[in-house]
């Protein structure tokens, strides 16, 4: 057999194997059970309104609140991290290491249930307020590191040139370095946004009133009540709704990254 004939044969065999794998999955799966448990038509038609108008609405709202709060916190943290006074740097580093090292769920539980017991102080907004503060604290730690990487990626010559023109340190940071750094960190920050959006599902643990429920909590409710009770149809619906939000965002990140690469 010649080299090219052998290569062709290999290709054919691989296609056959691929088709066999697909066919095997299709044959082994219990389609009837799958459609009954995950794709019940009544569940989709009966639940989608609550899922969109309460679940998606709250999920997006919680994401925006915790992202905004987290970003403000991250800017403060990164300025402390780059500060000339050492204790500020230590404090910032300690905070970042602590909150990057803890699972978000633990931080949420601690803020909503631990802090009030320990200090007799309840974060504003009830349990959901406490949960959102916890998400901000975690997101802030991650975003501070992203911002730092962005700032450090701005060529040192930019600062030197600005300073030699007589600009002050703070002014250089605000008008020369930060704008360039932000452009660099937009794709990773968008990734952070997507992660945060998914992390709002952890808020179920703090206790939510009916009107406060986000997508995951609501879909868990609909596993036991309403038209699709006793099935996981509401989970399927929640998954589709999450994808409807996250896929455009992740595609946007990919597009921005390729654009950034081209512009270099």
């Amino acid at each position: 057999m010649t080299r090219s004939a052998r290569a062709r044969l290999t290709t054919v065999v691989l296609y056959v194997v691929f088709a066999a794998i697909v066919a095997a999955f299709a044959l082994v799966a219990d389609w009837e059970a799958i459609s009954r448990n995950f794709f019940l038509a009544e569940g989709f038609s009966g639940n989608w309104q609550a899922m969109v108008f309460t679940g998606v609405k709250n999920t997006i709202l919680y994401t925006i609140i915790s992202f905004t709060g987290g970003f403000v916190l991250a800017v403060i943290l990164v300025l402390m991290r780059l500060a000339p006074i050492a204790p500020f740097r230590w404090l910032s580093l300690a905070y970042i290491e602590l909150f990057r090292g803890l699972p978000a769920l633990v931080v949420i539980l601690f803020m909503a249930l631990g802090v009030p017991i320990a200090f007799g102080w309840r974060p504003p907004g009830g349990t959901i307020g406490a949960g959102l503060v916890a998400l901000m604290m975690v997101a802030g730690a991650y975003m501070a590191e992203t911002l730092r990487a962005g700032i450090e990626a701005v060529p040192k010559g930019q600062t030197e040139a600005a300073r030699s023109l007589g600009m002050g340190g703070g002014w250089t940071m605000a008008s020369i370095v930060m704008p360039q750094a932000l452009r660099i960190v937009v794709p990773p920050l968008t990734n952070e946004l997507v992660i945060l959006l998914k992390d709002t599902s952890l808020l179920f643990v703090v206790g939510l009133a009916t009107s406060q429920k986000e997508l995951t909590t609501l879909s868990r409710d609909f596993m036991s009540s309403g038209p699709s009770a006793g099935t996981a149809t509401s989970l399927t619906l929640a998954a589709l709704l999450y994808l409807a939000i996250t896929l455009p965002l992740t595609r946007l990140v990919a597009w921005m990254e390729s654009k950034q690469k081209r512009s270099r």
Partner: protein
Amino acid sequence: MNIRSLYAATAAAGLVLTLAACGSDDSNGSGDGDASGLDLVTDGTLTVCSDVPYAPFEDFDESSPSGFTGFDIDIVQAIADGLELDLVVKDSSFDGLQSGLALNAGDCDLAASAMTITEERKANLAFSEGYYDSLQSLLVPADSGIASIADLEGKRVGVQQGTTGEAYANENVSGAEIVSFPSDAELYQALQAGQVDALLQDLPVNLTHTTDGRYTIVEEYDTDETYGLAMKKDNTALVEAVNEQLAALRDSGEYDELYDTYFSEEAAQDAAESSDG
């Protein structure tokens, strides 16, 4: 063969083997080969799913052979003994249990998790005969001034998500914010943290929170609820076997012994409290 197609072929072969393994696993699992004639997830073992902790029905206990303790656990241990099966208990989420997903997915043979028998759940689950009659109850801080469900206006009431207590609160509590939590662990923490003003849930579970005197039960609600052991809908052989064992436990007096272990003292305390109030 170049190196890339070698990788692809290896990966493909691996997948095919995995699939083949799945297939053969399946046929073993559904076989009626074991001595008891029951269709079990693992031959010779009664695999029970339970949402732990939910004292006094289920709790962790390293000293017990299954690693768990509680009224439900003792009942299923007695059933497993009667059927000459080993008992394995898996800690699961209540959502998965009461929706039937854990059973349908083959995680376990039986769900024993203080689960009330309801018409809605019967659509997807087979239940044993009832083995425990439960009441709902309202737990509040002893100094709260809340005396009944009517005093909850403007308050926050904690319930467990997906339970009959949540349904009862939604129907009968007016003007209060009903906040649902995943389990009693978070509920009790939230009450201590002041995030909620009261808990509405199964009486025996609320009772465990009254022992140190900081919290008290102000009302009980008879909702005609009975707990049942849940099984996969088509597993009639197991349902029959479990019912036979439950009947035998009641006949032999073993059921009463188990019941007294967990509920006699509390029952007395409960009577004292309701005469006080």
